[in-house]
């Protein structure tokens, strides 16, 4: 199947050809906002056109852009091709900056910090155990990508809990190692923020 990263990028290209100039702003927002931005601008256009001439302005806009693409080849098509490249260059440069900063940071770590950082990067859930767990729930086999994704998310989840628990521990004026009461208070806090999935409790709105 298609790569999730590639799926996200295709959304703005699919919506821009038949659109007005307003959609160019959407292309420049961050990758993750593109889908939502495009859809809200689409609904905004419907509302602003009003109920009277709703279909006509849209068709005229489409005709203009189509004619524009045929006549002036230096118009919209080239702009669409250049912008994603500029974004990729900018993102590569940001990546390189970030890599350099990380190198500077890691080179100035003390030994204890280096140890901890190594544990942070290297620790991972065993893929076999996660695969066994998922397969015992689904009853059918799962692909390798699913196991990779699930172990990655679980690690982030564990990290969120430990971070919150350390926050609690600090707030209560105590020191690590973390005690179960810190963990439970952390879980309670994350639950109110809805960061812990819970499908056991159904909210019945009207009794």
């Amino acid at each position, binding site marked *: 199947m298609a790569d999730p990263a590639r799926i996200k990028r295709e959304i703005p290209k699919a919506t821009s050809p038949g659109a007005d100039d307003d959609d160019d702003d959407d292309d420049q927002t961050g990758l993750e906002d593109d889908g939502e931005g495009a859809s809200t601008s689409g609904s905004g256009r419907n509302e602003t056109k009003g109920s009277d001439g709703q279909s006509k302005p849209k068709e005229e806009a489409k005709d203009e852009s189509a004619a524009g693409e045929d006549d002036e080849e230096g118009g919209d098509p080239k702009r669409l091709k250049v912008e994603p490249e500029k974004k990729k260059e900018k993102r590569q440069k940001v990546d390189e900056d970030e890599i350099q900063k990380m190198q500077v940071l890691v080179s100035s770590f003390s030994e204890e910090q280096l140890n901890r950082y190594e544990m942070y990067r290297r620790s991972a859930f065993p893929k076999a155990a996660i695969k066994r767990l998922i397969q015992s729930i689904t009853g059918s086999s799962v692909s390798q990508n699913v196991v990779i994704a699930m172990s990655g998310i679980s690690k982030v989840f564990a990290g969120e809990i430990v971070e919150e628990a350390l926050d609690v521990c600090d707030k209560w004026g105590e020191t690590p190692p973390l*005690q179960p009461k810190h963990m439970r208070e952390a879980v309670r806090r994350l639950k109110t923020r809805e960061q812990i999935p819970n499908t056991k409790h159904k909210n019945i709105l009207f009794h």
Partner: protein
Amino acid sequence: MAEDEDEAGFFDDEGADDGGLDGAGGQGGKRKRLFSKELRCMMYGFGDDQNPYTESVDILEDLVIEFVTEMTHKAMSIGRQGRVQVEDIVFLIRKDPRKFARVKDLLTMNEELKRARKAFDEATYGS
């Protein structure tokens, strides 16, 4: 109400450390510990002490197993029913920026590694 039940479950796990094989506990009660070693390293990496308490590691393991179970059940109910696919997981995680970015990175990295390994194998095979 539901939270009280959860905490009672945790209490039972810590109190009854007989290691006996009672009926299947709701919170992974008497099951063998799956992730003890890895979770210890992980907790140290995330900021805890070098030797975290065993009870805390147990609580965290139960939470992780519950998280994986919930995610799996949700993924089974969307997209293709009864199967878990990567797209379903990505869809479920879309609102959480950290997890979403992490999954995207992991999958792109995996693709790159696969491509690199394939190119390497072809190079050695061709020459």
